[in-house]
């Protein structure tokens, strides 16, 4: 259709513009297809494309102006990033041959490492999560998959775009060293401009702060190897006292001070909250305390003013409407008392009702815990088996090349061993059927599932390695394994 060619024209222009944070590449709830790493714009239905273009045109002039002072910076970033992207692309192509699945992850992270600006269509109070470039891309896209009007919410998107820029830096863009000196000066200048309300200046600061991170090549590669881990891991930070659950990648952690500038999602802990409350109280209570003051008092690494701001807001709401926060979640929901047809006005009955509710809730909690543990164990066993298989695969390749008649027995031995041994044992039986792409025979064995103490029995039906998981496996399926 007509929209398509015009979009591609727009694309090359927009590619430049995108550095400056033009919004609207991926609108609406329509699922967006990530294009191959060469391109960055998805293929959308025409109406979306048209509206996209309109957006691009609407926003680009406005966007450029605030960024004009930084255009040099951005320009540098972009150029270096494009170089980086090609490198990544090559390496991901190489890997593609070996691991058709994993390449998806890697090529996506390629995109994300270099896709600079996509608007944050979601509420800007919600800080973003991790800094890994792969995750970045997904975030970017996810924000855009929110409704189209959100994409048009320009003022917010500008500020977020800056942060995205810096975050894509975290993605391991090697910044040429000549930029660093420039950025350091700007950093000091920008430091003085930090105010609570100066969203733009703080963004500039964020931008510059992160631009000044020296990310030498080795670390880039290190991060590259991390890219294959799809999501970067949020620290399950419950144990660390008063350290924010900041999610920086290994690369970014080297510059923890600058880390504090980014708008990543903070994972709050009770300890951190304690520190927060203390700081607030020192400053005279939740009404009088300012985010800046609290941030300074808390001295928590990785905590940004945005985190504090949103947290303070929540805190104030929780304090001054303690009844309503509890009730508002129930406002639309009728309470137990109202719904009961009986007259439950007496305190004892209410208490008993609450007790009952507690019991049910406790039940649910208990069951959830059990279920979660089961799920963890299942995956653990699956992983263990996979590992074992890969080991056997390597040693077993020779066997496979040998006589085919001998293959039946080792397999049977293995399946028996796996079927009988408890999960933790190493059966040590060589397996020579190492078709990693094959369908899992084990998973198709439905009758096996019937005897069920799943959490106790071996998890043999690993769908990756072609394991014939149980001795019940019909011969036909076993034969399939050796095809």
């Amino acid at each position, binding site marked *: 259709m007509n929209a398509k060619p015009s979009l591609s024209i727009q694309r090359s222009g927009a590619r430049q513009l995108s550095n400056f944070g033009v919004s609207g590449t991926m609108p609406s709830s329509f699922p967006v297809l990530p294009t191959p790493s060469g391109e960055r714009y998805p293929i959308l239905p025409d109406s979306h494309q048209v509206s996209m273009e309109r957006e691009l045109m609407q926003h680009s002039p406005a966007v450029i102006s605030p960024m004009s002072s930084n255009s040099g910076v951005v320009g540098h970033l972009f150029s270096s990033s494009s170089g980086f992207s090609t490198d990544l692309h090559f390496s991901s192509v190489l890997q593609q041959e070996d691991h058709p699945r994993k390449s998806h992850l890697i090529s996506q992270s390629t995109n994300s490492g270099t896709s600079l600006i996509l608007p944050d269509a979601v509420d800007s109070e*919600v800080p973003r999560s991790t800094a890994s470039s792969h995750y970045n891309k997904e975030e970017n896209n996810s924000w855009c998959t929110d409704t189209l009007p959100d994409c048009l919410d320009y003022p917010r998107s500008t500020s977020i775009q800056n942060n995205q820029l810096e975050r894509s830096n975290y993605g391991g863009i090697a910044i040429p060293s000549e930029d660093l000196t420039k950025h350091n000066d700007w950093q000091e200048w920008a430091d003085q401009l930090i105010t609570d309300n100066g969203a733009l200046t703080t963004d500039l600061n964020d931008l510059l702060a992160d631009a000044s991170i020296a990310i030498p090549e080795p670390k880039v590669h290190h991060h590259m190897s991390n890219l294959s881990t799809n999501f970067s891991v949020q620290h399950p930070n419950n144990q660390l006292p008063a350290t924010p659950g900041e999610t920086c990648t290994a690369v970014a952690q080297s510059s923890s001070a600058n880390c504090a500038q980014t708008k990543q999602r903070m994972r709050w802990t009770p300890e951190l909250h304690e520190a927060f409350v203390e700081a607030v109280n020192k400053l005279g209570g939740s009404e009088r305390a300012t985010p800046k003051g609290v941030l300074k008092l808390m001295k928590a690494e990785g905590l940004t003013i945005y985190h504090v701001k949103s947290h303070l807001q929540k805190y104030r709401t929780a304090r001054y409407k303690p009844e309503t926060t509890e009730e508002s979640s129930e406002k639309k929901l009728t309470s137990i008392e109202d719904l009961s047809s009986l007259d439950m006005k007496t305190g004892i009955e209410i208490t008993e009702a609450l007790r009952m509710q507690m019991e049910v809730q406790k039940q649910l909690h208990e069951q959830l815990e059990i279920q979660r543990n089961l799920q963890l164990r299942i995956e653990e066993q699956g992983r263990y088996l996979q590992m074992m298989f890969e080991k056997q695969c390597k040693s077993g390749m020779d066997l496979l090349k040998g006589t085919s008649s001998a293959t039946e027995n080792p397999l049977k031995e293995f399946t028996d061993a796996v079927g009988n041994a408890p999960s933790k044992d190493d059966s040590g039986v060589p397996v020579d059927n190492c078709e990693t792409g094959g369908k899992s025979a084990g998973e198709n064995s439905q009758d096996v599932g019937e005897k069920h103490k799943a959490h106790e029995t071996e998890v043999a039906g690993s769908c990756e390695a072609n394991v014939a998981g149980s001795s019940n496996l019909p011969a036909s399926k076993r034969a399939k394994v050796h095809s």
Partner: protein
Amino acid sequence: MKFGKRLKQQIEQSLPDWRDKFLTYKELKKLVRLISSAPKADKEFMYCLNNEIEKFNAFFMEQEEDFIIRHKELQQRIQRVTDTRGPNGTKPSETEYKEEMAKIRKDIVNFHGEMVLLINYSNINYTGLAKILKKYDKRTGGVLRLPFIQKVLEQPFFTTDLISKLVKECETTIDSVFPASQEQGILPAERQAITVPGEGIFRNTVAALLTMQEIRRGSSTYSHFSLPPLNLPEPDIFQSLQLLSPIPIP
């Protein structure tokens, strides 16, 4: 199909704000079906999956933050009320105290319930993810499931330890706030009469338990990866509670 239905029911009965935060199981299933025919469906699927996870994480952490704040506030509130009741002599009226305590009890029980529901949210989404990945692998003969799920396990929305801890702390607090139980055991009939699960947290909880039970009942693709059937200590209670709820849970 069965899980999808269960999930939908669960969503319908969940707290209103949460309803759009669950896994879009149906859409993902559609994508999986399209994969063999459409070349790009694969990438789209991956893309959607990652989006979903991002969604879970964001929502979960937001809720978690709220819970942390409210937990502390509740404790302080209880402290205040019990302090004013102290032996110093300056006490507010008995009825006021009782009222306050009743309110606190209600609030804390609901708070507990909400947290448990968040854990349930996390779990049901995880279950859905595992299922959809299994379907994907089956369909494409791929090896996506295991590595992907390993990463999911590390995601914030699945690491519910903190919430669990808060729940347990809550339970302890509740024990201290509630008067000692006078009746040893309430007859099942009385129990039903007392607690009609209306809309809201309680009903959501009951629904969650029953859903869990149903999901684990067993399916055509029962395998070593499947969870065993649910083992509720008093399943009858929940069944009867279900009967009382306005919207039936088949």
